[in-house]
């Protein structure tokens, strides 16, 4: 499983380190503003239609989740009828074995790839490279990451954390680029080297945004032409499809495609959209001779039968990342998962469990902006909290916090305990504040309190309590209790 990375660092270490990178911090914030603003304009333009579309998409996605096996079977049968070779992979390892078998059968050792989160999820690149197979990422941003040995900071625009100077340097060092940092010049260079790789590749590996059950088709939504090269140049094509990518028919695909680019980058449509139904047909001049579809579960069925089933509606648009007040500061790297941001917390914890995610489920203020912006109405912030509830129930919370929460629970359920705690606490706090109205920076040594006062002042408990005043107030009105 390659969903998590940098697990030797804690969330706090990753966040602290990330905040030092001023460029990355600003790049993510700027991208958020741009996507958010453009999305907002399109949503406004659609008026009530947007909410109707959202509701329809939610119904369609729920319908597929509720009838998952039916649609998996329908899609597989129709894809097979189109001439595709189907491989069902219950786990990531199963998927890897299927892929290795395909390479072995063809004696292939050179592959190009485009746009697939599922291959990231199972760590396909690493496995192929270990067996001596060369695999080239052809999506521009993915190629930058692969060349630099870096991880995505955003699910839609993964190389956002590199500026043009950094990208120039990466290609100079690794690929012999000798041009300037002008983006057009770098992309021309990339185009040139990638063309050769498209021609040489024996296998093309790609992802799939939506799989259409009624036609057995797979789709690819991109803004570069490279995805289309991957799915038409190499003789052998392998398509990775998560079982949660299926839509019933072309009509429901239309609904999803109206929501996806608008939610993702604030665009009505992307530059490229491919709908592929099987290998090259008789008399056709291009396309692969052989198409393998790896239909992967890897924990989706388990999710579908859990309290996180709503998450199967997710279309990976990144709208929740683009609005999240936490993501904008900690970036994808803070989470340490290929699925970052609000959707990433829910999905990552849902797929890998709670042992290795550190405090990821707690890196959220539960503000609900994600839920409000989700095009398929996933109650994301509620699901994040559900993970916290499960973590406590399974005893995977920090033992040190348990007595604190137990004490709070006692105080909040007993007015006498509460009154006593206030009476004792007020002078102590005043003393720690040196008679001032708030605890300042110099109180940042006190356990628990330092969590707050390391960055903010904390107002002291009042010497007059509201309830005391109210009682007196009612007495003066004559007639209160």
């Amino acid at each position, binding site marked *: 499983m390659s969903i998590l990375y940098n697990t030797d660092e804690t969330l706090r270490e990753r966040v602290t380190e990330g905040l030092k990178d001023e460029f990355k911090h600003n790049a993510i914030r700027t991208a958020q503003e741009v996507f958010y603003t453009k999305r907002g304009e399109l949503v406004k333009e659609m008026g009530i239609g947007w909410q109707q579309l959202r509701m329809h998409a939610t119904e369609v996605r729920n319908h597929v989740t509720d009838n998952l096996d039916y649609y998996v079977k329908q899609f597989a049968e129709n894809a097979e009828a189109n001439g595709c070779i189907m491989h069902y992979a219950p786990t990531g390892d199963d998927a890897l074995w299927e892929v290795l078998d395909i390479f072995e059968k063809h004696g292939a050792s050179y592959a190009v790839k485009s746009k697939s989160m599922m291959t990231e999820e199972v760590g396909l690149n690493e496995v192929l490279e270990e067996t001596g197979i060369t695999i080239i990422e052809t999506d521009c941003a993915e190629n930058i990451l692969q060349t630099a040995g870096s991880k995505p900071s955003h699910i839609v625009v993964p190389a956002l954390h590199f500026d043009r100077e950094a990208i120039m340097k990466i290609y100079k060092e690794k690929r012999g680029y000798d041009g300037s940092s002008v983006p057009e010049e770098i992309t021309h260079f990339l185009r040139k080297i990638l063309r050769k790789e498209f021609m040489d590749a024996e296998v093309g590996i790609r992802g799939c945004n939506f799989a259409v059950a009624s036609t057995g088709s797979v789709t690819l939504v991109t803004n570069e032409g490279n995805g289309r090269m991957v799915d038409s140049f190499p003789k052998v094509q392998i398509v990775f499809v998560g079982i949660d990518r299926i839509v019933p028919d072309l009509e429901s695909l239309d609904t999803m495609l109206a929501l996806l680019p608008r939610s993702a980058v604030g665009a009505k449509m992307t530059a490229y959209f491919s709908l592929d139904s099987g290998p090259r047909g008789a008399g056709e001049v291009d396309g692969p001779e052989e198409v393998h579809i790896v239909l992967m579960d890897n924990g989706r069925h388990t999710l579908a039968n859990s309290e996180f089933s709503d998450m199967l509606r997710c279309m990976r648009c990144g709208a929740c990342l683009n609005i999240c007040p936490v993501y904008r500061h900690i970036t994808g790297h803070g989470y340490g998962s290929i699925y970052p941001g609000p959707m990433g917390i829910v999905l990552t914890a849902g797929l890998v469990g709670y042992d290795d995610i550190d405090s990821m489920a707690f890196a959220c203020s*539960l503000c609900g902006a994600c839920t409000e912006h989700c095009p398929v109405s996933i109650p994301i912030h509620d699901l994040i909290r559900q993970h916290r509830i499960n973590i406590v129930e399974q005893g995977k919370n920090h033992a040190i916090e348990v007595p604190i929460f137990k004490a709070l629970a006692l*105080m909040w359920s007993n007015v006498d305990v509460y009154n006593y705690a206030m009476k004792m606490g007020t002078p102590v706090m005043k003393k720690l504040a040196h008679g001032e109205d708030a605890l300042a920076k110099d109180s940042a040594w006190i356990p628990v309190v330092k969590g707050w006062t390391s960055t903010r002042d904390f107002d002291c408990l009042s010497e007059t309590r509201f309830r005391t005043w109210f009682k007196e107030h009612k007495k003066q009105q004559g007639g209160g209790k």
Partner: protein
Amino acid sequence: MKIAFFPGCMVDMIYPEIGIAAVNVLERLGCDLELPEKQVCCAQGLINSGYVKEMVPAAKMIIDAYDSPEYDVIVSLTGSCMNAIINDYPIVFADEPEYLKRTEELAKRCYEFTDYIVNQLGVTDVGATFNDTVTYHKSCHVTRLLGISEPPLQLLYNVRGLEYREMEHADRCCGFGGTFSFKQPEIAGEVVYEKCRTIIETGANVVCGADVPCLLNIKGALGRMRSDGRLDRDIRVMHIAQILDSRG
């Protein structure tokens, strides 16, 4: 019409002046208020940290305190506490059918302070005068989760002397998030500092809100920025009730 007032624990513990202002405003509008003696805190900090079972006694106490035939409605001064009763208690009482039913009944009689004034009392001008520049933080619980966006602005609009200045992304979280702000101080600090920068950019002398925890957070951050020299003027942090109680 008897109102059971729900100030929220922070008003009782830290900011009694906010509660007093709200009582003044409501009484001036002819309301008859009571404060149930046993109420303490909605305890949402527990469920938000994952402690659901531990929250049951505190939630029961709130229901017992407010679910009484002598109260016609409940008016909450803090949106997030009201949100806890309406949206969180049903989860907490999943195995407590009696309390679940009572919560559902009580939820129908719960109103947030500004929503109550505008949509129940039908008042948008409370006769307040406040001669200053004001910006309003649209807190997540009031605005997004309870869906109350217009009433606070309608009330501020009718305050004489008040010059309203909208901040950028007024509905973006201030980074409080309950225990989040203690557990993840690095992140919460970044979020609230950014909120403060948008407040400062409006040039307003006062920032107000309808959710007390956000005010504690924003006040704490502005205070720290002031003492660090990152802020060169005083910005007052007030609950909207205090502005509505102002008479110039």
